[in-house]
Each structure stands twice: as structure tokens, then as C-alpha cells.
């Protein structure tokens, strides 16, 4: 077969030759069998996506749509700065509405990447190497989307730096005892550490792109990003140590971020928020939504970019198992919240939960329950777990459900205050929608650019766990 023959034009040429991508057929990619020397095949399968002169048409269409949504974000934010946060439906008594819902939603999604790269690394789950790069990228983009919201919902969006301890002429400092300030540090640290982790993993792969580059510009840009990595054993030694340490540092960090986010609610005294189950419940939900988003992105990506050779069906199935497990934990938390409301014998707490399920927001509550608790249970069946269409639908539903979970927690609790005189009902405006849609534009634009310009799979890690690397 021509395609396979072209894979390694240097085979059997001991002196080595000028590398050339000429004559390679990017369009009709055929998966080569992984033979005695699988390393070149892995490189080719992954790096080819970055090198191909023309990405698949689906990429252009997706990028076009994403850019339109991104424009919606830019317009919404500009109008927000001009007019003020009154353009949103955020109003008394629901004074924490969509901006916080969306913030928690995006931060939650951003948990999958570092969990896969750090915790599964420490647990020696080698299957993670197929998906960790894309998942980490997704994490970083999700956290960027999340960070948009706290910055813009503070009323005067040009002053978010007041949240940081910067010496200033007002001689004031942030309130370090406030969970809202803990949030700033938790999410900020998470973003920085995830970025470090991601970039560190990218260095060897960017070096691969540099070494295969044909044009001067490519060699310069990727050469700069690769920092001059040449794969020396002495460098690999420190690299592996550093990677292990970053994984160990990230593991408690992943668990802490959504715990701290949940403190925003749990340390308040509002019925429906004031509960000790929040930290573990939020972390389980975050992993749940993050894994669902990874699958939502990777199912089409591996299809369009021909990465099925590396991102196998069994990897997606593993992900589905984690979704099933965390989804069940989330379901348990929903049940436990009701139990505690009954067992705690606080009439306000009891009212809040009965109101959630049967009050004016019942539609949102039951959407959440069906998307998060009922549909993921289909993953008990191997047929569903290994069916691409089915898992795509369920994963999208999980993300819908997880958005509604945050909406239900925030809106239903605030809409029914202690005082019936301040009860209300939250109605979003068009600007709430356009801002939220806009963050999806930002997210998908960044992810599509990542797919095109950076290696989607950590090739060095995939090679290192291949049996041939261990002499088998």
C-alpha cells in the first residue's frame, strides 16, 4: 500500500537523508500496523495533523462557527463595560446568577485534564497517555472561560486586580478570610500549574515538530517553543523527576480547587448552600462534567484527524466508566442533600429542597436529575459504553445537566429567601445568553487552534509505554 510505504521513506537508509514530506498522502491516511519499530508510526500519526497543509473541512466549519460565537462574547463584554451589569437578569434576590453558574460550570469542566494527567499518572494508569494532552489543553481553555466570569461580574470589570494583594495607594488589602478571595488563589494557582504541566509535557513533542519542520518560519516558531530540547538522557532524568513532582503537587490541587469553589456557598448561611457535603460533591461533579467534555471533544477530533490509532475505543470506554462512577456519586449527593434536609429538621432547609423539586424551578431540577443521574446509568451496558453516537449524546446531556446543577443550586436557593417578601424568580436576558454562548466560542476556538497547531497526543509518553520501548 502506497500510504504505508510512504510512512518511513528513510527505512533501511543508514546514512540518513534529507527529510521530506513530499509524496506523503495526508488525505487518505491509513492506519499502519504497529510493527517492530512503532515509534515512527506514532510520531507520524500525531504530528501529521500539525503538518498537513489543509486540515479537514469540518475543522474550517467548526472554526467559523466558533469565531462567530467569539464575536458574540466580544460584543457582550464591550456592552457590559459600557452599560454595567444591569444588562443581565441578575437582580435581587437572585444576585448571583448566570455569571457564577457559568464560572462554576467552566471550572468544573476544567478538572478533567489535570486529574487525568496527575492522578491517573500517579496511579500508573498508562491508558491516560492517549488522552492526557487534549484533556489538559481542554482544562486550560475551560479555566480561561471560567476566569472571564469572576472578572466581569464584579460590577466594575476594569478593577479585578483589587482581588490580588498588590500594594496600593488606598493602603487596603484583600480580605484573606473570605472564601471569595480563596477562590482567586485557588483558580489562579490551578490555571498556572495546569499551564506549567501542559507546557512541560509539550516540550518534547514541539521539538519533534521542530525537527520535522520544512519551512524556516515553522522551525523558528516551534524551535523557540521547544527551548532547544534534544532529548538528552541527563535532561530526561530531571524531566521525569519534575514531571512526577508536578503530578504529586497537582493531585491535591485538583481536589482543592472545586472544594474551595464550593466554600463560596458552603460557608454562607443560606439554606441549600450551607452544607458540609459540598466539597466532595462538587469535586465528583467536576470530574463528571470534565470527563464528559473530554469525550465530547475527542470523539469528533479522533474521527476527523485520523487519530483512532492512538486514541482507541477502549480509552473512550475507560472514560465512560469514570463518568458512570462519578455520575452515581453525584446522584448519591442529591439524595443525601434531601436526607440531611429531613434529618437536620431545619424547616428552612426542608422548604428549600421541597421547593427545588416541586417549586417554580422544578423544570430545572428534573432536567438536572435526568441528565446527571438517569442517562449516565446507561453506561452500565458495554454496548452503550462502546457506541460512539450513544456516548456522544450522553456526554452532551451530562454537560447540560451539570450546568443545570449549578443553576439549581444558585438560583433556587437565592430565589427563596428567609423572608417571603424578598422572594423572586430569575429570568435571564439576551445578554446572559450571548455571554455564555460567547465563552463556548472562546473555548472551541482555542481548542480548534490547539488541534491544528500543537500535537494532540503526548507522543513521547505514548512511545515510552509501548511494549517495544521495554524490549518486548
Amino acid at each position: 500500500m502506497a500510504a504505508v510505504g510512504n510512512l518511513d521513506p528513510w527505512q533501511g537508509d543508514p546514512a540518513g537523508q534529507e527529510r521530506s514530506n513530499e509524496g506523503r498522502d495526508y488525505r487518505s491516511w491509513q492506519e499502519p500496523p504497529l510493527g517492530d519499530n512503532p515509534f515512527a508510526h506514532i510520531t507520524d500519526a500525531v504530528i501529521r495533523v500539525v503538518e498537513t497543509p489543509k486540515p479537514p473541512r469540518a475543522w474550517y466549519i467548526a472554526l467559523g462557527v466558533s469565531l462567530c460565537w467569539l464575536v458574540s462574547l466580544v460584543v457582550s463584554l464591550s456592552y457590559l463595560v459600557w452599560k454595567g451589569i444591569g444588562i443581565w437578569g441578575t437582580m435581587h434576590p437572585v444576585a448571583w446568577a448566570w455569571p457564577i453558574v457559568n464560572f462554576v460550570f467552566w471550572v468544573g469542566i476544567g478538572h478533567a485534564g489535570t486529574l487525568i494527567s496527575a492522578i491517573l499518572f500517579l496511579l500508573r494508569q498508562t491508558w491516560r497517555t492517549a488522552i492526557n494532552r487534549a484533556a489538559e489543553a481542554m482544562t486550560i481553555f475551560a479555566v480561561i472561560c471560567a476566569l472571564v466570569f469572576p472578572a466581569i461580574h464584579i460590577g466594575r470589570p476594569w478593577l479585578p486586580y483589587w482581588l490580588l494583594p498588590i500594594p496600593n495607594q488606598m493602603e487596603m488589602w484583600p480580605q484573606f478570610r473570605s472564601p471569595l478571595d480563596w477562590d482567586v488563589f485557588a483558580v489562579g494557582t490551578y490555571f498556572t500549574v495546569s499551564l506549567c504541566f501542559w507546557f512541560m509535557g509539550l516540550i518534547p513533542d514541539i521539538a519533534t515538530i521542530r525537527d520535522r519542520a520544512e519551512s524556516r518560519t515553522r522551525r523558528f516558531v516551534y524551535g523557540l517553543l521547544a527551548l532547544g530540547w534534544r532529548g538528552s538522557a541527563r535532561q530526561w532524568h530531571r524531566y521525569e523527576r519534575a514531571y512526577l513532582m508536578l503530578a504529586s503537587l497537582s493531585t491535591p490541587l485538583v481536589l482543592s480547587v472545586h472544594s474551595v469553589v464550593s466554600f463560596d456557598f458552603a460557608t454562607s448561611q443560606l439554606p441549600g448552600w450551607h452544607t458540609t457535603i459540598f466539597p466532595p460533591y462538587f469535586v465528583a461533579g467536576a470530574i463528571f462534567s470534565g470527563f464528559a467534555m473530554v469525550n465530547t471533544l475527542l470523539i469528533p477530533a479522533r474521527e476527523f484527524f485520523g487519530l483512532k490509532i492512538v486514541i482507541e475505543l477502549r480509552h473512550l470506554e475507560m472514560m465512560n466508566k469514570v463518568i458512570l462512577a462519578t455520575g452515581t456519586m453525584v446522584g448519591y449527593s442529591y439524595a443525601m442533600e434531601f436526607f440531611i434536609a429531613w434529618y437536620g429538621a431545619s424547616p428552612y432547609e426542608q422548604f428549600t429542597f421541597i421547593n427545588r423539586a416541586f417549586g417554580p424551578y422544578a423544570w430545572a431540577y428534573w432536567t438536572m436529575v435526568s441528565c446527571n443521574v438517569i442517562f449516565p446509568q446507561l453506561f452500565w451496558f458495554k454496548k452503550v459504553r462502546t457506541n460512539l453516537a450513544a456516548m456522544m449524546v450522553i456526554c452532551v446531556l451530562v454537560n447540560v445537566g451539570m450546568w443545570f446543577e449549578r443553576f439549581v443550586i444558585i438560583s433556587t436557593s437565592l430565589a427563596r429567601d428567609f423572608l417571603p417578601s424578598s422572594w423572586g424568580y430569575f429570568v435571564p436576558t439576551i445578554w446572559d445568553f450571548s455571554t455564555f454562548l460567547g465563552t463556548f466560542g472562546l473555548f472551541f476556538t482555542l481548542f480548534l487552534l490547539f488541534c491544528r497547531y500543537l500535537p494532540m497526543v503526548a507522543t513521547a509518553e505514548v512511545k515510552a509505554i509501548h511494549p517495544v520501548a521495554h524490549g518486548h
Partner: protein
Amino acid sequence: MSDSSETSTPIPEPEQVHGLLAEYSTPQQLIAAARRIRDAGYSRWDSYSPFPVHGIDPAMGIRPTVLPWIVFAAGLTGGTGALALQWWTSSVDYRWIVSGKPFFSIPANIPITFELTVLSASLTCLLGMLLMNKLPMLAHPLDRSRRFARVTDDRFFVLVQASDPKFDAKDTAGLLQATSPRGPIEVVMEDTKSSNVIPRGIVYALLVLATAAIVPFALSALARVSTSEQTRLDIVPDMDFQQKFKAQRENTFFADKRAMRLPVEGTVAVGELRDDDHFYTGKVDGTFAKTFPSQIEISDATMELGRKRFGTYCTPCHGVDGSGQGMVHQRARSLMQGTWVQPADLRQDKDIYRSVGELFDNISRGVRNMPAYERQIDTQDRWAIILYLRALQRSQSAHLEDVPQAERGALK
């Protein structure tokens, strides 16, 4: 890129040689070769691979890196720094009372301490790894070897540097040849053409950028020391000019120019009718009443209501026994507040003989440091508090003779 490095012989002038390069196909061959070179006593050499090869460290004799200790120290520094920052800002430089909580308490400071520990350790981990690996190193003699480009793909290499004390062009080449490499041994030349010097264009661009970055700071510094004839810019006019009137502001729309409006003359808001002086003000014909108004039933139920309301509103300052030694007083004393006035001891004679009407007036409208409680406590409840206070005053200054005969035994 020159092609001169592609030939194995003859070896050019020694000072231009960087080292000898051997290529291998599998990680196992690389490990075998590394063992031989290590055993031959070389020190300035390295092996190169597309991924970390398992077992190469002992084969090459690489000793464990000190990086973990550096990261540990950075984590400790980050954690200590975070604690110090929170302690100094919130309990020394900017003391801000929140619900009487302590200015510095470890539980509230754990999250940020943890985050900054991780942040500091992680950044050190990445930067330490890069610096110890001498990265970024954008140019290297090996870059001139065409074969070496596959080191990030699927090939394995060993480079013995010419600067090694044991290096000898012939012997070293022989040793490498004996490790059965793939293809000929390659001579890597020193890189004399390219250098680590940054291209001049980039240097100029950076200089221009750095200069431009000073401009905003210079402008704001200038603004701070100069005056302007122009009015300030309203970047967000909707926020600066809102369509509302604040309390105590002028409103030219009304004849009296007040934004706050008085009730329409001759009207009373629902539930605001107060046509019983005795009940609502504690006064009868302008003097303080000596009796409870008729609306107040002297009963156990009223007494119990009064006890509860006293517990809620009065005990923080006056204490459960009315001695004026409540928690607020004790806290003020522990903080050594010099201007603090002790709340009244309600057991004193002047309070015992004060009329119920005057006590009602004191609670409703406040006295000395004590604020008015008219808006917080219902009229009915204020009277109930006074009823309870009367009982409290009696019990606090009671004698054994006041206790019924049957109960005296329990007190002895």
C-alpha cells in the same frame, strides 16, 4: 546547514571537532552502548532518545538529581510566605473587624497557604528543571547533523564530546564502532556559523517594545503632578450618573427641594397609628407612667416572653443577671478599649426605683451609649422585657426571707 558533517573520514582539525555521534535503532542497543562507554571511563558524553528510556540512568551512571530538594524548599518558602503575608496584612497593616472574629486564625488562612505552597513549588519545579537542564539552548552543534533530527522521532544516539579527557579520535571511534551502531560514526563539528546571539532585528523590536511599555506609566506619573483644565472623562456614564435620588439629596422637582418625601398631611400609614400614649411612649399626661398599660397582661406568658427578648437583646451588654458584665463588655475590656463605658448595672437602686414608663422610654429611644430599640423590638415585647426586668431586679437583691418557706431548704 552544511553537509560536511555527513562524512566519517577524514577527521578534521581537532579543535573544530565537537564530538563523535553514534546512532542506534532500539532503546536496548542504546543501553548496551551506554554501559560500555561508562565502563570505559568517559565523563563528558550523553545519550539521546525520543522518550525517557527505562534503565538508562544506571547504564550511564546518572546520579539522582537534587531538584526535589529545591522544590521542597520552594514549597516551604511559598507556604511560609503566604502565612506571613496574611498575618501581616490582616493583623498588622490593615486590621479589619469582621463579626468580631480574630484578625489571624490558622483555619481561615489554610486555603491560601496551601495554594501558594503548591504554586511556588510547581513554578520552581518547571523552572528548576529547565535551568538545571541548561534550557533554553536554542543552538547546539548537534543541530547540524541531519541524522540527529530523528532523535525526537524514533532514533537513539550517543555523543562523546571531544572535550572529554579520555577522548581520542581513533580510540573513541573504535569504542563506538564496537557497540554496533546503525550506520557510520559521525563527526560532529563545532558550530562556528550560527551562534546564541539573538538576531539584531529581534533585539531592536524588544527595545522598542520595552520603551513603549514605559509610556503609560510615564503618562500616569505626569498626571499625578500636573493639573488639567478639562473635566474628568466619564468612561462609563451609566455608572457615574444613575437615574435615582439618594437620601438627603436635593430634588428641584418639588417645591421644598427635598428628594425624600414626607407623608401626605392628615394620613397615617397602615399599622402606624399610635393613639395611646401610655402604651406607645410610656407617658401619661406628659410624665412617665408608674404602671403597665392595660394592653399588657401581667402573666407567666408575658414574663416568659420578656425573658426570651431580654436574652436576645439585652444580655450581650447587660449580662444574664443584668449586672452590666455582658460579653460585649468583657470583649471591650480584653481589647483594653480606653473609651469604653460599662453598660448600666440594672440591679442598682436608681434602676429599681425608676418608673416602668422611663425604662420603656430608655429602651425605645436609647440612653447614653445604648442605641434605640424601638425599630427592633415590638412594643408589646418591650413592655414584656420591663416586666421580666422587674422580676430580675427582685431576684438579684432578694433575701432568704423572700423565698417561700417550703423552698428555703433547697437554697441553704
